[in-house]
């Protein structure tokens, strides 16, 4: 009897139908098991209902042959009506199920290897339990026989070695205790993260980076660090708990406990447990190479093809238990048709190691051969150089990586401290690329090292027996004999072409886009007048419009007044204080400005204005970047309001007055004789105060900030740039450069004319 006949008129509940295996199973059942009805539990996602998601699913190419002309079904809706029943729901809260189920295939599960511990328990253990309870409820007290097929993983064997039998995993962990403890971790860790010492630690780290930008920016970063820490701890806790009991990670650990739950229910339902190993693309059905999303090996294959995976901590002789998805689905279908006895769950291990092993070295050779023939085309630099793996062993790869991480950290510390410039930014960008690669390596090393060094051998006699029991052309349709697969052919002609295809398409797009980006890099779009709303363009001064800084401009303003020896003394004092000032500047720009401006005490404000008009104005104008002035004028021509927001003292902005509609600068307080007191008449406008000022201005003046512009050069201006819709980082320092790249902001380089010299002190030697 064929499988189709055996499963005629059966109603099969499938969980996880939108997943990789679920989708393939649905495809097979619609096509090759015409008598079955599929009940799908689908979780609503966003605004999409379960039924909606099913409709989406059926629109995929692999389902198209099942409806339309030449088929029994006019369209996807007709197909759904005839063959599929959708139950909206979620494994964390399983809905009531139809009462006439014959078979349940539970493919849903958390497939990530490093889920947070509570999520792993929710889906893999508690979800399974509540599903089983609901199935029991659906029998409504009758003793209707429902065949429960549980899709687990071969790696429930954990860190065991040698031959793994097709039987219950031998361990003593109590799933109830573990689940309770695991679920409790969530609130425990959350609580821990909110303790004073932890919060202080996050805040300090955040402030080290963002204090200059202001408290709120630092606070946002503090909270981000906290949630990141919680997520990381939940994962770590899961992994460590798993390892402490002999499993590789939380995924296999909870999967194993899930099997225990299933085994407990084996007295109620005839039960089969299917344990596939690493599921990869199809050999035959739906079509060779079919794969949905990226599984375990794909990121590594792609990274290797891009030349970004210099080495891997695998043993060259360890066996990689890869299994094509259609073999898994074939086996599941065959298992569905079996009739196991109560209390005697059947185990099926679908792996390749026992009868057609693929070693890591062979796999590497296959992938390398593939990329040698079909290299990625990454731009104009020709094919990528493929790394040659020597398999030096886990420890030395780990050492390599650690060395890389340390070198990166050091380089990063250096780059954030050296003077800014085009070259610094180039190095920073290279470092960031490096960092991304190291992080990638670190993540995959930690995830996969265990698997790549596993020395297990999954016995699959039951599966072979299953295959052999298939009759007629079922052997073709539902093949699950791994020995038919030629691995080199599979890797080079089926799998790799399939997984790289989307990447290649993306590369073409990216190449075009990058070319476009390169052409427009550093070129600002022309500004347009806007009739609907008032638009502002806010500019920072020091470092943005002209190369100068507060210390320099202070010297410009003070030195002309003084005679020779006084000049030397003033200069010497500034020099002596420089280290202190620089460290103050790193911490708090406001305090730094106050420290400098204190030194104006006793200066005559009128005299300062005169010095600026007669001596400095020339100097300031000489240093103005031509591009900056053009941009300001462009804004004015477009009818935008131009605003200069600077921490510099008001007199210094005098030469720029005609360019701006409004100038916000530090006001030196004066006494009754017109002498500066050394204090400011209000706090200097730096960091977040700038953002607050702009927002306030916008509220008052009917200004559309989303269409407005801001231009600044330093990390402390981050808040100001963030409040407008068109932020532009001008010759930014490394921190702002990174923020700008992350936010896809425009970055331009406005150079101070090469004709001006930093060593010239107006009124002194120039």
């Amino acid at each position: 009897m064929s499988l189709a006949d055996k499963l005629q008129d059966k109603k099969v509940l499938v969980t996880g139908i939108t997943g990789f295996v679920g989708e393939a199973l649905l495809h097979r059942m619609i096509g090759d098991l015409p008598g079955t009805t599929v009940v799908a539990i689908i979780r609503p996602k966003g605004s999409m209902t379960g039924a909606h998601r099913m409709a989406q699913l059926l629109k995929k190419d692999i389902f198209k042959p099942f409806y339309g002309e030449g088929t029994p079904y006019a369209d996807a809706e007709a197909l759904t009506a005839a063959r599929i029943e959708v139950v909206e729901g979620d494994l964390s809260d399983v809905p009531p199920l139809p009462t006439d189920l014959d078979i349940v295939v539970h493919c849903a599960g958390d497939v990530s290897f490093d889920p947070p511990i509570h999520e792993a328990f929710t889906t893999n253990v508690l979800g399974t339990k509540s599903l089983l309870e609901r199935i029991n409820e659906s029998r409504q007290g009758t003793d209707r026989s429902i065949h429960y097929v549980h899709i687990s993983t071969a790696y429930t064997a954990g860190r065991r070695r040698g031959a793994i039998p097709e039987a219950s995993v031998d361990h003593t962990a109590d799933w109830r205790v573990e689940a309770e403890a695991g679920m409790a971790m969530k609130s425990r860790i959350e609580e821990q993260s909110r303790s004073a010492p932890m919060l202080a630690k996050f805040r300090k780290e955040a402030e080290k980076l963002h204090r200059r930008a202001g408290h709120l920016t630092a606070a946002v970063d503090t909270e981000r660090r906290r949630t990141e820490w919680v997520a990381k701890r939940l994962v770590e806790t899961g992994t460590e708990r798993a390892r402490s009991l002999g499993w590789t990670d939380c995924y296999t650990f909870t999967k194993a406990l899930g099997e225990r739950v299933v085994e407990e229910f084996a007295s109620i339902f005839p039960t089969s447990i299917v344990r596939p190993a690493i599921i990869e693309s199809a050999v035959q059905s739906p079509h060779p190479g079919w794969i949905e999303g990226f599984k375990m090996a794909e990121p590594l294959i792609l990274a290797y093809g891009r030349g970004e995976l210099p080495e891997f901590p695998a043993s060259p002789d360890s066996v990689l238990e890869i299994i094509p998805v259609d073999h898994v689905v074939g086996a599941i279908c065959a298992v569905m048709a079996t009739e196991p006895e109560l209390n005697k769950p059947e185990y099926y291990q679908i792996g390749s190691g026992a009868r057609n092993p693929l070693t890591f070295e062979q796999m590497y050779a296959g992938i390398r051969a593939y990329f040698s023939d079909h290299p990625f085309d990454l731009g104009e630099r020709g094919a990528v150089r493929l790394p040659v793996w020597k398999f030096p062993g886990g420890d030395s790869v780990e050492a390599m990586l650690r060395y890389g991480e340390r070198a990166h950290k050091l380089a990063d510390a250096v780059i954030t401290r050296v003077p800014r410039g085009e070259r610094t930014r180039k190095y920073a960008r290279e470092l960031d690329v490096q960092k991304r690669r190291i992080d990638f390596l670190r993540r995959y090393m930690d995830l996969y090292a265990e698997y790549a060094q596993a020395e297990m051998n999954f016995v699959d006699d039951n599966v072979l027996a299953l295959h052999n029991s298939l009759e007629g052309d079922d052997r073709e349709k539902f093949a699950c004999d791994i020995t038919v697969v030629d691995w080199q052919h599979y890797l080079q002609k089926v799998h790799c072409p399939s997984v790289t295809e989307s990447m290649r398409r993306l590369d073409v797009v990216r190449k075009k886009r990058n070319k476009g980006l390169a052409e427009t890099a550093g070129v600002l779009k022309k500004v347009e007048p806007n009739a609907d709303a008032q638009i502002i363009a806010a500019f920072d001064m020091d470092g943005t419009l002209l190369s100068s800084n507060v210390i320099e401009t202070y010297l410009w303003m003070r030195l002309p007044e003084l005679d020779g020896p006084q000049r030397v003394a003033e200069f010497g004092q500034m020099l002596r204080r420089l280290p202190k000032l620089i460290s103050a500047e790193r911490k708090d720009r406001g305090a730094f400005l106050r420290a400098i401006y204190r030194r104006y005490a006793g200066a005559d404000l009128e005299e300062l204005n005169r010095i600026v008009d007669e001596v400095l104005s020339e100097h300031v104008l000489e240093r103005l970047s031509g591009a900056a002035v053009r941009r300001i004028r462009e804004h004015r021509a477009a009818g935008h309001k131009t605003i200069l927001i600077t921490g510099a003292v008001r007199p210094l902005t005098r030469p720029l007055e005609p360019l701006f509609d409004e100038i916000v600068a530090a006001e030196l307080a004066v006494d009754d004789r017109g002498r500066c007191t050394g204090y400011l008449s209000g706090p200097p406008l730096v960091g977040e105060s700038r953002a607050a000022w702009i927002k306030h201005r916008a509220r008052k003046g009917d200004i559309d900030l989303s269409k407005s512009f801001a231009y600044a050069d330093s990390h402390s201006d981050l808040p100001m740039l963030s409040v407008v819709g068109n932020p532009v980082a001008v010759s930014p320092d490394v921190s702002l450069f990174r923020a700008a790249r992350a936010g896809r902001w425009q970055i331009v380089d406005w150079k101070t004319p090469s004709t001006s010299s930093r060593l010239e002190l107006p009124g002194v030697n120039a």
Partner: protein
Amino acid sequence: MSRPGFVLEVDDRTPPLIVHNGEGFLLERFPLGTRVVYPPEALPAVRDVEEAIQNALLNPIESEPLPELLHAGMRLTIAFDDISLPLPPMKKPDIRQRVIEAVLELAAQAGVDDVEIISANALHRRLTPNELRDIVGERVFRSFFPEGKLYNFDAEDSDNLTHLGVTKHGEDVEISKRAAESDLLVYVNVNLVAMDGGHKSTSIGLASYKSLKHHHNSHTMIHSRSFMDHKASKMHHSAWRMGEVLTEHVKVFQIETTLNNDLFSGGLGFLQKREWEWSLKDQASMLAAKRGLAAAPNKLRHKIYTDVRSPYGLTGINAGKIEPVHEKTIEMVHRQHMVEVQGQADVGVIGVPYLSPYNVNSVMNPILAAVMGMGYHFNAYRGNPIVRKDGALILYHPVPYEFSQLHHPSYVDFFEEVLSESTDPATIEAKFEKQYAEDPWYIHLYRTSYAYHGVHPFYMWYWISHALDHCGDIVWVGANRKTVERMGFRSASTLQDALEMVSHSVGRSPSITYLHNPPHLIADVR
């Protein structure tokens, strides 16, 4: 007696020749048969300058002697040529200082106490106090500057401009109110090259944009052939017509001075000698200069060149009525500069030096480099250009992307915004000139800072329109490709490459003329 200029024909004994190349120079071997035009050597200077000045003031041409024009209670205005003359700047004392002091002396004797001294800078940048002091001298500066009686002309100060009328061609004549309302305007000129002086002094130097635009436009300037020959220059014709209107209203006492070709002295003295006549000392200083400049950082090199002051000798001074005075002046200038050249060549070669009239104490930006080569030097001819129509022009200058944001703010924008759209003078004029001329920011900078007027780069571009129109190919040797391309030219690495590039229009063995200047020369092409 100094030797006249001559044309050398390069043969196999000719040593490598000096070619000016921005802030530096090259020693270039020219193809055999190249004709090299050498300027005349410096004419002998007047021995007693003071005496010559007195003589000119007391025995003017077609005018009463100056003392007779001066009387107590009158308004006297002295205008003088600004910092764009002479090039390079003159070693102290400046000839203008000497003349102004003499005029003031006579004025004091006559009891004139309403005197104002104006730098006739038209739309050029204002002179800094130091620059004013360098020209008029410490004494005059101290007595007049603090009281605001020594100042720069402001062509945008509408309250202080007077419209004197229109010429028969309908051209407005609008000049400084103070000059227009003075009983006597004494103009103190430095006539370095034939383009200067005459009616150009007052009716251009003290004129407003409204007045200037009648002749400073692409049409007039393309038909000024050349600027060095006022009788064949449309621009000068216009200035002369304006001068007629002006002199109807204002009594002008024109004092014109001419200088000799003594430009370089000391370590750079070899630059004005003929290469095969270099002494051991000249060769040593040439080597030292060449190596030194090559090794010096940009800023130092710039400073070395900016600090060059020339020991010009005065060759003549004439005073009185504008036209006859200018006749005499031109005669003297021609004697110093004119070199007879037989026939036009297929290819003209010009080395652009570090200085143009518009970047004294500043940097030579790409537009000024183009003007210096294709406006100033290319136009240094009488009769016909040195290059035949549709011939090729090869220029030397590094043309770095370098602008002074202080002096040339509108130049940067002109380069970025205007030249990126078009390099055709007429198109540029129609589309952009008005916008730049009336831009409040440029006007603000022109009036209060030290910036050239917003419209000035346009005038520069119009000035090269004759060369653009006349030459088929224009190639720069050793120039920054990007900047040169933006201006619509091409760049070659060597002279050989440049000749290769132009060979499609002038053939494989073109006739070549190289203008070996500065020192200044005018090629009288027959």
